[in-house]
């Protein structure tokens, strides 16, 4: 498997702004397990086997509460359903075959998907030259960096939980919103054509939050967003067809 160093570096550069959030969540995750006296291998193995933060949190909290295994498996899978959309959205861009594609699939978290979307947009707006970048290598670079930080911070959080108590005065909700707000503002600023859709989604996000919570809410917003975008494209297609006829 040949990896292109410049593309790996590009991926690392693109994911760097998200790393502080991964550090904080990794520490909190390790702390949660350590504080509940769960075995170290149990905590760290979720990070390198599953590598999906939200699902991992749910699994560990469910184990702490002695929940039955089958509902844990089903809920974890439902939480991760949104990843189906990520793979489909990147299908046309990840063209390589073999092990690289497996690696991209393993590393495709929310954060890596955001990085992939940023790189895609830079390529589409000619800020990055497509022939100079190996898209998969950039995703692998971003993914391996995120994976390493997440796993290291899980271990640090587990063993040094007592020292980390001061960190937890900041709510995890604030860390999530703070991490991705920057991307949302730049999306609004740099892509005026997306503003109407973003506005529609803000309203949908607010309204949906009254009925749904956590990862189910995330999934609902992604599906509603896709349906709205598809409806707009359908209307556009009908308009073009009526103009042609």
């Amino acid at each position, binding site marked *: 498997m040949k990896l292109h160093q410049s593309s790996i570096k590009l991926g690392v550069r693109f994911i*760097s*702004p*998200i790393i502080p959030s991964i550090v904080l969540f990794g520490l909190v995750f390790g702390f949660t397990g350590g504080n509940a006296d769960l*075995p170290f*291998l*149990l905590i760290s193995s979720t990070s390198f*086997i*599953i590598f999906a933060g939200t*699902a991992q949190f749910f699994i560990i909290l469910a*184990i702490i509460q002695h929940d039955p*295994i089958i509902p*844990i*498996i089903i809920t*974890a899978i439902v939480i*991760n359903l949104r*990843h*189906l*959309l*990520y*793979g*489909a*959205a990147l*299908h*046309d861009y*990840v063209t390589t075959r073999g092990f690289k*594609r497996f690696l991209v699939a*393993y590393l495709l978290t929310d954060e890596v*998907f955001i990085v992939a*979307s940023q790189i895609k947009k830079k390529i589409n707006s000619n800020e990055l030259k497509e022939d100079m970048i190996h898209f998969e290598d950039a995703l692998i670079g971003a993914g391996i960096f995120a994976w390493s930080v997440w796993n290291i911070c899980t271990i640090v959080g587990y063993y040094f939980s007592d020292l980390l108590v001061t960190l937890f005065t*900041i709510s995890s*909700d*604030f860390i*999530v*919103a*703070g*991490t*991705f*707000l*920057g*991307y949302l503002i730049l*999306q609004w*600023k740099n892509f005026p054509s*997306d503003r109407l*859709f973003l506005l529609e*989604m*803000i309203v949908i*996000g607010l309204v*949906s*939050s*009254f009925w749904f*919570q956590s990862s189910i*809410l995330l999934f609902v*917003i*992604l599906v509603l*967003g*896709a349906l*709205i975008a*598809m409806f707009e*494209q359908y209307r556009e*297609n009908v308009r073009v067809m009526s103009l042609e006829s």
Partner: protein
Amino acid sequence: MEITEITVFIPVFVLIGLATFFMRGIFLFFLPRFMDNSILKKGLNSVSNSLLIALVIPFTFFVEGVFSPWRVEVLALIAVIPIIWFSRKPGYSLIFGILILMGLNILIP
């Protein structure tokens, strides 16, 4: 006790890990022909924007499902907007957000 927990849960983690890998990879590897059209593509291209909204709006304005806009956390995030707008650095939002929040917590006890 530790050994029992580990031997029970590691296979569970492997199962969930495989399911997650499958969900991430299935359409990355095979996109059915019926999904290869402009309408569906538009829907899939919207996922990144929807994800940003899903990660910002509920986590900013809701606490455990309750609408709570009048908090210092919301104020801190609003104060971050001009910083990002002019600096164009998305990574600043968390760092400056935490700094502003700490400042507000001192000013508003």
